[in-house]
């Protein structure tokens, strides 16, 4: 309860009390009413003397009693009991009938006054002490209110009595005057008549201790809602709080006249009862009105001590240390802020600024450009400007163009002479104008070519074709494809392991036997040598008398046969028993000893004219030669079919007859082509399918041998094809050319090269694929053999991966030639190079 309210006291309206006393039957009066009546009665009827005297006496007595209490502890309990008894008596008195109450009145009154005084003192202390002392203070209030109402109005009462009586007389006059007033009176009276019943109920429930506490439970609702009703709300028991009787204007006026406390009587809106403000209340109001601190004891002019200043004191004002919390950032705050920030980030909430901006944007008016367009480009398009190119800017004028150029810009006699000399070709002159000196700007004549030049400039702008230069900023490194490192692509040959020495002239060609045990090589010194691969030992030398241009070991494992091109002769040799495989050698000999029956060896005339299968002389047989096929022109290339029965030979300048296919088992030949297709360089069989690759000078043609038709024409883009190698899978082709290029064809992809490799500084003369490892090598006239990783995938969607791996140092250069043939070992990652320095090199 706020302190200023504690001063509020309730005073029961005198009219009300009068009406009560007059009209309410005494039997019905509740304790509260009776209490009020009792007080009223006392106030009204008892004289000042009676009132004051016992009070004083009681006061003294009470004081004495208090003293006694203070001195004698035993009496304290008695006194308290007596007080309690009094209270009880007063409480009991509610149950008693009026007559009995009357008897008790005096005694209770006395007791009461004494206790009142005590308690009022206590109350005052309590009020100062604390505000929420609970029920006791509430009781105290009621008592104090009671005691004060007793004291103050009583002094004025005698004076007002007479005035009131006069006013009553006037009332009667007024009543007689107006019927309306009479009606109002009637209403009032009727109201009044109903009231006591309600009142009685109201006081029955409560006990005397909080009899004055008429709590209205309606809450904070506008009280005019109850204007129409006889009650103003409900008390704690849910019973109606009946409005105290309304006073009419006359009553008001009379009250105003006779009640000296009228000016300080206010109506409690919640109960509708009048409350007379006490002196303290008035003081409080006065202080509030003046804008002072409500507490009268407060000294607003006391000296100001600035306890909490920014100055650092030697000792802290507060004894306790700062809490740890004050040094740590708050977790919950952080969480809160984080939540807000997250919401902002996600766009769930917006900052005030954003909201304001949005609101502003919304408020701004949007105009639709009806005739224009939204963007600059659109604008230009609408205006008919397509990709406008700004006119080139002219150079700024130089010093020479000045009207008064520095003397070094002026032409001297020699330069003038030159100037005149170039009059026929004026664009060769140093300047397009003659630097001239004028005394002043005024003296500068008009430029005679102005019009013409301006016209030409306009023509330039109008007619000169201009284009925007599209500049791409791509670093060259970005264009290089990402390739795996060579280390991951091992094994591949990395260095020379063996040099096979023995030939006397450059080695034209070399080949491995199918198991990789032997190497055969053919040289310009007219010999064919067979070597042991692992040791580099020359096991056999066959002198053929003619430079050997090409050797090829039969790919079939069960036979021991080497095809060798010496001049125009194709020799099939058995390297023989000296070279390992006895039994295969014998088997081969047996196979070749007898020619097949003659009817099998029928060849047409055209073929017969260019090929002649010859009988082998005994001394040749002893050398190992088993078959001789003489061609009409020198042979340039030989290649075996994978099965080892067919042999494809190319002759130089043979025109339409440059490619021949020999069948060894039946000793017959075929001319597959009827028409010349260019200079044939080499021809190779497809490793698995019946197809033939024929390389002419610039084009590689792929023929289907079964259907006898051209399947594909591969445009190499090279000037002169030198060699060719087919991937063991048969879908890829590597073509080497004399113009330093190697071209990889993916036959599944297109007839255009998949990739052109420029890895050599000179003509490329040899190319080879490895049969097992994804390796290929190329070599030529420069002293380097390039080994590359060439992975062809089975997946058609994946392009072959080509990674240059290693540059191997080739054999020595002789007469601009270096490497003439390359072969990979059939099983190991070893590479054999036939060199121009009469050696064969094995790289591993």
């Amino acid at each position, binding site marked *: 309860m706020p302190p200023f309210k504690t001063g509020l006291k309730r005073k029961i309206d005198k009219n009300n009390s009068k009406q009560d006393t007059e009209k309410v039957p005494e039997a019905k009066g509740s304790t509260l009413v009776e209490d009020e009546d009792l007080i009223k009665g006392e106030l009204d009827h008892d004289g000042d003397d009676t009132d004051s005297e016992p009070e004083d006496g009681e006061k003294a007595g009470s004081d004495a009693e208090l003293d006694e209490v203070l001195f004698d502890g035993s009496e304290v309990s008695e006194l308290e009991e007596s007080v309690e008894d009094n209270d009880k008596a007063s409480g009991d008195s509610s149950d008693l009938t009026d007559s009995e109450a009357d008897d008790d009145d005096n005694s209770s009154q006395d007791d009461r006054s004494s206790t009142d005084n005590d308690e009022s003192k206590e109350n005052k202390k309590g009020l100062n002490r604390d505000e929420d002392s609970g029920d006791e203070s509430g009781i105290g209030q009621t008592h104090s209110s009671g005691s004060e109402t007793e004291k103050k109005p009583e002094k004025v009462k005698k004076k007002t009595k007479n005035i009131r009586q006069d006013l009553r007389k006037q009332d009667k006059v007024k009543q007689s005057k107006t019927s309306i007033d009479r009606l109002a009176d009637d209403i009032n009276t009727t109201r009044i008549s109903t009231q006591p019943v309600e009142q009685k109920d109201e006081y029955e429930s409560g006990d005397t201790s909080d009899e004055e506490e008429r709590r209205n439970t309606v809450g904070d609702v506008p009280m005019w809602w109850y204007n129409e009703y006889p009650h103003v709300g409900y008390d704690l028991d849910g019973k109606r709080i009946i409005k105290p009787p309304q006073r009419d204007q006359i009553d008001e006026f009379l009250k105003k006249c006779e009640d000296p406390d009228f000016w300080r009587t206010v109506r409690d809106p919640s109960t509708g009862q009048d409350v007379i403000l006490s002196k303290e209340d008035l003081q409080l109001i006065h202080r509030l009105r003046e804008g002072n601190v409500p507490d009268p004891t407060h000294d607003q002019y006391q000296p100001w001590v600035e306890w909490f200043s920014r100055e650092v004191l030697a000792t802290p004002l507060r004894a306790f240390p700062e809490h740890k919390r004050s040094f740590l950032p708050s977790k919950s705050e952080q969480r809160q802020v984080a939540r807000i920030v997250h919401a902002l980030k996600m766009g769930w909430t917006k900052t005030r600024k954003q909201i304001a901006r949005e609101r502003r944007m919304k408020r701004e008016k949007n105009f639709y450009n009806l005739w224009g367009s939204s963007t600059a480009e659109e604008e230009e398009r609408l205006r008919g400007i397509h990709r406008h190119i700004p006119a080139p800017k002219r150079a700024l004028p130089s010093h020479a163009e000045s009207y008064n150029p520095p003397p070094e810009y002026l032409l001297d006699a020699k330069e003038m002479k030159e100037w005149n000399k170039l009059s026929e070709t004026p664009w060769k002159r140093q300047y397009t104008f003659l630097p001239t000196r004028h005394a002043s700007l005024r003296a500068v004549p008009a430029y005679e070519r102005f019009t013409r030049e301006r016209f030409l400039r306009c023509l330039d702008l109008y007619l000169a074709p201009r284009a925007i230069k599209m500049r791409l900023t791509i670093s060259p490194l970005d264009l290089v494809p990402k390739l795996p490192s060579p280390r991951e692509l091992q094994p591949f040959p990395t260095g020379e392991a063996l040099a096979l020495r023995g030939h006397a002239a450059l080695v034209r060609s070399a080949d491995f036997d199918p198991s990789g045990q032997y190497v055969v090589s053919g040289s310009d010194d007219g010999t064919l040598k067979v070597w042991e691969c692992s*040791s*580099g*030992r020359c096991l056999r030398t066959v002198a053929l008398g003619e430079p050997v241009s090409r050797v090829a070991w039969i790919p079939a494992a069960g036979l021991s046969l080497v095809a060798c091109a010496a001049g125009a002769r194709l020799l099939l040799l058995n390297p023989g*028993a000296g070279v*390992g495989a*006895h039994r295969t050698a014998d088997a081969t000999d047996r196979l070749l000893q007898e020619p097949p029956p003659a009817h099998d060896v029928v060849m047409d005339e055209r073929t017969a004219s260019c090929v002649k299968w010859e009988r082998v002389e005994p001394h040749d047989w002893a050398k190992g030669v088993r078959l001789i096929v003489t061609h009409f022109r020198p042979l340039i290339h030989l290649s075996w079919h994978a099965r080892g029965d067919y042999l494809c030979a190319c002759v130089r300048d043979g025109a339409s007859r440059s490619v021949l296919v020999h069948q060894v088992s039946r000793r017959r030949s075929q001319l597959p082509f009827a028409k010349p297709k260019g200079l044939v360089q080499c021809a190779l069989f497809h490793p698995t399918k019946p197809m033939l690759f024929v390389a002419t000078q610039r084009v590689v043609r792929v023929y289907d041998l079964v259907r006898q038709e051209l399947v594909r024409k591969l445009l190499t883009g090279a000037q002169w094809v030198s060699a060719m190698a087919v991937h063991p899978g048969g879908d890829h082709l590597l073509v080497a050319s004399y113009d330093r290029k190697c071209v990889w064809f993916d036959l599944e992809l297109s007839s255009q090269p998949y990739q052109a490799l420029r890895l050599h500084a000179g003509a490329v003369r040899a190319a080879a694929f490895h049969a097992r490892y994804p390796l290929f090598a190329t070599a030529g006239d420069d002293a380097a053999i390039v080994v590359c990783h060439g992975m062809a995938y089975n997946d058609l969607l994946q392009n072959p991966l080509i990674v240059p791996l290693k540059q191997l140092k080739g054999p020595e250069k002789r007469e601009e030639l270096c490497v003439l043939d390359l072969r990979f070992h059939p099983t190991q990652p070893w590479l054999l190079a036939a060199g121009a320095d009469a050696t064969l090199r094995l790289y591993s």
Partner: protein
Amino acid sequence: MPMDIAEVQLQVRFVTKQEQYAVPDNPYAIQSNFQVSDLNTLLNALLKETLPSFEKAVEFDFLVCGELLCTPLAEHLQEKSISTEETLEIEYLERFPAPSPQDCLMHDDWVSAVQAHGNWILSGCYDNSIHIWSTKGQHKLAIPGHTSPVKAVSWVSFNGDQAVFASGSHDQSAMLWVWNVSNNSVDCVVTCRSHNKGVECLAVSADSLRFATGSWDNNICLWSTSLSNEDNMPPKKRSKPDHGNTREPLTTLKGHREAVSGVKWMDYNTVLSSSWDHLLKLWDCELGGIKQEIAGNKAFFDVDWSPLNNSIIAASADRHIRLYDPRSTESIVRTTFTSHSGWVQAVRWSNTRDTLFLSAGYDNQVKLWETRSPRTPLYDLSGHEDKVLCCDWSNPALLVSGSSDNTLRIFKAKHAVTNA
């Protein structure tokens, strides 16, 4: 940097397994830049102090952290990242004495195979002949018989005057010969024909009852060495290989996919083989199956196994020699020995020392290796002028190598130290 290290003092303790050279177990403080020679001086001085009988200076080798010391001590420690703060334990052992060149036996052609035994040296030659030499360098006999280069030779047994040896050749046959020492006459007793391609390697089992041949036809054949045939036919005198007794193999071990380049008996039932298909295989002879495989990534040229330390060394188509453990199931290279600059063609363990082996390379070098020194061989036995094709250390006193410069060189291991 080496200068900084030079200032450091090291605490070392010398230990040895050779009892005759034991020194007191005291720690010594030495400079960290000590070389092997410095250590040798120190140790000899120590030995002189402790052993009254010790007179002649002995050369020692020093093992630091299981590796032979070749460089200055500081460098070695840095390489091994060993702290110089703690007391270092240096094991020392008498150095294997440097082999001295003893003889050079001239042949008519490349020497492709060689084996010494006792006083006799057997060599195979590319001119299809087999030669018998005494260890003194005396040419005893040249035996023509094969029709192709002889690729492998091996002594089988000595029985008084009768010596038996086997040879394998590229003519697809292996031959068993009996040599009468006193008469100096030789007989081809049996010709073994089963291979379809040249015989590349040959090995006789420890009990001399069987021998194995590896060939280019990817097979290994096991043969009996008994001189008599089952029907007890007396061997013909001076029989030509074409007319001699032929014999069928006891077992043919098929499984390699490329040429078999080396065979070696491990025990009476196990054959180790190396092949060009990058595999080493251990065969069970009775079952004819593969016991174990060791995969390399290069073609193997030769293999040898030592009963002393039960490890395999293999030469492959590169500069390295690799040491494998046959007991491990994974193909892990235990040590790689790198010093040759060309292909290594042959490797042979020592019969007496478990840490020594011999290798022959195409860089004209024969190298003597210590297994605890993977970078540096103990000795380079140079002298050959061309590719060295074969080497042998069957006689512990003789290091024999044959080369493509038509010579067979003999190095004498000065005094074969018994294994410590």
